[in-house]
């Protein structure tokens, strides 16, 4: 539908209406951010918003050794998973972007089908496998599982990143004596850094957000990730909201901001793989 002109009144109404809808839509999250500044001693029943404000909760959260350990574990698992996904995804994405070969379309539709396999079934087999080989309650199966579920998206997205690079650039490098692989590493990768970084960041976010495998493969509390630590905290009888809410904000807000910066680099890959994150 084309609306080319609106009267001043309708235009003002559109601005006000849309802004209101947006604020109402994200209001639960805004409420949570505000609640993170509520003093620990102030009961929630006193009002929807804090009566007085403090950043003390954040200091307490950052001094909690268990939470810090969980943050570090999440960082470790997500950083390695994303790195591994990139190491496997770069050559594969490049292969799909540059070559026509037998089985190419089959493999590409296979990549689209992989995410429809229920994660809970993958959790069962990887759990049994991990127990058998003695890797249960370590971060290894977690890293492998994260790499696995995010690899299809990584390949799809990197394929679009590489397909946007002009072939002539590599061809001239190959004329000068580079192999295909050297041309990829020396010529293509340096000019696709934004796309690579965005893909890495997105897989990092998805691995950080992962909960099912983290709760299945880890039992020791020092090895828990931040998602599982928070999920078990909310299930307790006496929830320490003054620590849980700031921890939740700290675990998600930096990644939301990161996501806003990278989204334009990943939207094409998302449309093709239809990953939901």
């Amino acid at each position: 539908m084309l609306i080319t002109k609106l009267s001043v009144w309708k235009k003002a109404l559109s601005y006000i209406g849309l802004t209101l809808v947006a604020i109402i839509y994200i209001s639960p999250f805004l409420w949570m951010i505000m609640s993170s500044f509520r003093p620990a001693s102030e009961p929630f029943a006193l009002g929807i918003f804090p009566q007085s404000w403090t950043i003390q909760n954040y200091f307490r959260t950052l001094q909690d050794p268990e939470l810090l350990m969980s943050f570090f574990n999440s960082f470790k698992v997500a950083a390695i998973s994303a790195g591994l996904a990139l190491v496997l995804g770069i050559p594969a994405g490049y292969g799909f972007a540059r070559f026509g070969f037998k089985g190419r379309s089959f493999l590409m539709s296979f990549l689209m089908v992989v995410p429809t396999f229920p994660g809970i079934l993958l959790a069962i087999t990887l759990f049994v496998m991990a127990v058998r080989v003695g890797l249960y309650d370590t971060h290894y199966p977690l890293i492998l599982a994260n790499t696995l579920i995010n690899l299809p998206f990584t390949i799809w997205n990197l394929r679009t990143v590489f397909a946007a690079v002009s072939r002539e650039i590599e061809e001239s490098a190959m004329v000068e004596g580079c192999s295909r692989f050297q041309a990829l590493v020396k010529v293509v990768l340096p000019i696709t850094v934004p796309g690579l970084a965005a893909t890495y960041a997105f897989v990092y976010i998805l691995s950080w957000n992962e909960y099912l495998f983290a709760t299945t493969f880890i039992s020791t509390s020092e090895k828990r990730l931040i998602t599982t630590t928070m999920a078990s905290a909310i299930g307790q009888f006496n929830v320490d909201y003054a620590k849980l809410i700031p921890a939740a904000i700290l675990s998600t807000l930096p990644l939301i901001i990161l996501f806003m910066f990278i989204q334009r680099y990943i939207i094409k890959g998302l449309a093709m793989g239809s990953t939901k994150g």
Partner: protein
Amino acid sequence: MPKIRIHTAYWFVLPAMLFFILLAIYPSGYVLFLSLFATGKGTAFSADFSNFSNFIAVWNHHNFSKILVQTLIYAGGATLLHAFLGFTFALLLNILPLNKTYIRTMRTVFLIPWAITPTVVAILFRLVLHPQVGPIAIFLKSIGSPVVFAPLGQTDSALLFVTLTNVWMFTPFYMLMILSALQAIDLGLYEAAVVDGANGYQQIFFITIPSIRNLLLTLMMFDFVSTAAYFDLTWIMTQGGPVLSSEIIPTWVYRTAFQSFEFGKASAIGMILFTISVIVSIIVLRVINRE
């Protein structure tokens, strides 16, 4: 020369494919094996063919149809609402002739719920819907309402509110996808329709919707399949309760596998879910390819 090119391509794709074979193809075969052969509890099961006893046990389970129906309500309801709301938001942001920077800002704001860690979304709505600390309950109390607001603790509303939380969280994804598809529609089509005298609604029904039909169907297919298998939100919000009123197949599989340690039976339940997913995908892909 062409022969060498074929070889190069395979070398590039091979590492990722080996990884898939090792960690995706093998496990999916293994789940099938478990569902058919493993009986009893624990990871040291006897590997004798069990005559489909796991599938029969699941099929005859007194809660099977209840949980299946709840899964279909959850996944189907969430998918339809995602599509409807996502389309509405995208359309509004696309057709209103407002300031470009403003539209971009609104698009970013609407994306926030999807960018929040799902565990945090689950915790957030447990708090928002909480009967003591939640803002809605506090508001109701402050105006003297006698209503007891505990939607996640009541059997008739838990599934509904988990579904709505899912809708809140994933609608932005639809908005993002549909908006970028709407922006790609050739404006000349609308101009031609205006010349032919089409009104706004006719333009939406005869140009906008057909243009994004395949994207929308693909999105909804993946959405239905992945929501039916989506564990995190339901588990953290209600653990399938109270009294299994929000139990869906993935939480049932989890309970069976990791609380009762009946891996064969859990695999059988999961295989039923996977079969439904495959059937839905095939039907939708047929519809798309019929064009």
